């Protein structure tokens, strides 16, 4: 079983919808500890992706992911633009030229994407950022490969790991981004970046449920 190009395009399209539906929720999370624009910015960026998608959805998966990243980079702004831009661009580079993805391919793409985010944002696990949702998701995928689990189940396990990572940001004190200026006051709030990262991985698992 594998992820086809159509599956990938559907993930992107579904992501647009999910981020639009959760725009206010993300913005509220951000308002508590940041500058209150994360949901608005992500919604704007993914709408721009949707508008441009017809121009590149017939390309290979690597090119599609890279173009999604480039579009987010120039439309999201704030810290989310470079971080999610890097996420998709790095993922695309890891699977350049491919027309379908195995579990190993997807894992490699996500791994590279997260490494890119870590490099760009200089964040480590536990800093109360999107890395807290993404890193456990990658680790879970590698474990699934070792245990020879099927793709569908692996994606669900990965999304569950992201969810746990997201929820686990609640008690953390932020050490990166604008929330870090709040110090102890940032504890008790779920990180908006970890939340949007979880939503994207959950959407992948849901979209590829019958893939």
């Amino acid at each position: 079983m594998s992820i086809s190009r159509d599956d990938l395009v559907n993930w992107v399209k579904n992501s647009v919808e999910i981020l639009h539906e959760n725009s206010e929720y993300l913005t509220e999370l951000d308002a508590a500890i940041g500058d209150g624009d994360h949901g608005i910015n992500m919604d704007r960026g993914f709408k721009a992706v949707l508008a441009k998608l017809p121009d590149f959805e017939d390309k290979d998966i690597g090119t599609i992911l890279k173009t999604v990243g480039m579009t987010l980079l120039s439309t999201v702004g704030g810290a989310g633009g470079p971080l999610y831009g890097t996420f998709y661009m790095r993922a695309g580079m890891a699977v350049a030229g491919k027309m379908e993805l195995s579990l190993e391919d997807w894992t490699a793409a996500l791994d590279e994407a997260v490494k890119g985010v870590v490099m760009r944002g200089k964040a480590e696990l536990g800093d109360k950022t999107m890395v807290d949702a993404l890193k456990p998701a990658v680790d879970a995928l590698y474990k699934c490969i070792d245990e020879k689990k099927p793709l569908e189940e692996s994606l669900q396990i990965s999304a569950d790991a992201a969810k746990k990572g997201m929820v686990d940001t609640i008690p953390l004190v932020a050490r990166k981004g604008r929330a870090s200026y709040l110090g102890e006051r940032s504890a008790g709030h779920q990180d908006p970046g970890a939340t949007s990262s979880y939503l994207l991985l959950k959407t992948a698992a849901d979209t590829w449920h019958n893939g």
Partner: protein
Amino acid sequence: MKKLINKIDDVVPEQLDGMAKAYPDIIKVHFNPDFVYRADAPVKGKVALISGGGSGHEPMHGGLVGMGMLHAACPGAVFTSPTPDQMHEAARMVNAGAGVLFLVKNYTGDVMNFEMAAELAAAEGIDVQNILIDDDVAVKDSLYTAGRRGVGTTVLAEKIVGAASEAGYSLKQMADLARKVNVNGRSMGMAITSCTVPAAGKPTFDLPDDEMEIGIGIHGEPGQKRMKMKTADEITEMMALSIIEDPPYSRTVREWDKDKAEWVDVELTDPPFKAGDQVIAFVNSMGGTPVSELFTVYRKLADICDKKGLKIVRNLIGPYITSLEMQGMSITLLKVDDEMLKFWDAPVKTPGLRWGV
């Protein structure tokens, strides 16, 4: 919300368009991506100085583009960092072949967007360097936070480093000078009212009539402490002493190494102020405070500097790095040497700052 605006989405583009019409001899404006650039760019043989950041701090940065200061400025949405395509296109427009220096205020979004722009420019063979400005002493800690924010020293750095470009400094010399200005400058801000971002439609924070926020950031970020309103002299003394007595501040910043074509970590420490230092004193309005009140602040600041043995050799007083209509002010002290002072005095012709021409 009452503001002199038309449609929310048009706020920044219409302001840029108005600036272009007001100062056609000094600046031009490029749209999609948006940036303000010198009307005579690229300036032959000179290193281009580019800055940018969220809008809402005018005249910084777009109003500080012109001879002797910035070559281009990239405005984001109000209080939101610009995107890499803006800095990349601006760099291509104003690069005269001698390279481009990005002057970046230390905010997570600005830093990352400028870093990606530097990578894009470098990939095309443009010599590029980036220098951070992080001078806000209200943020004490660099290990557990994103570090000090970039505030008032940015304006002084744009003037001094811009003049160095006119004088024919190389990219490396300009970067070294910008770094020197940054570690020698310290600032602190305060607010007595909030401000309203047009897209938000309501004030960024609530501040009771009899209270003030000390150590506020230029986007209305929370400061060090909230307290009952005091007299101008008491406020000025509290802030001036926080700046003058600030202990050495160490941090690691990331700079682009153009020879290695990779990011390198650079350790920086601010030297403390000491008696006998020469300083430029900058008293800035957050936008809503009248210039007249800034003189009340300056009067006390001059007195404190005198008592501390700091010699104010130049000053700048007025609204230069604002936060929309916020009432409040910031103080910046920059320890200067002969090199910095020479470039401070050099001619400048921008919409927001002009002398010697």
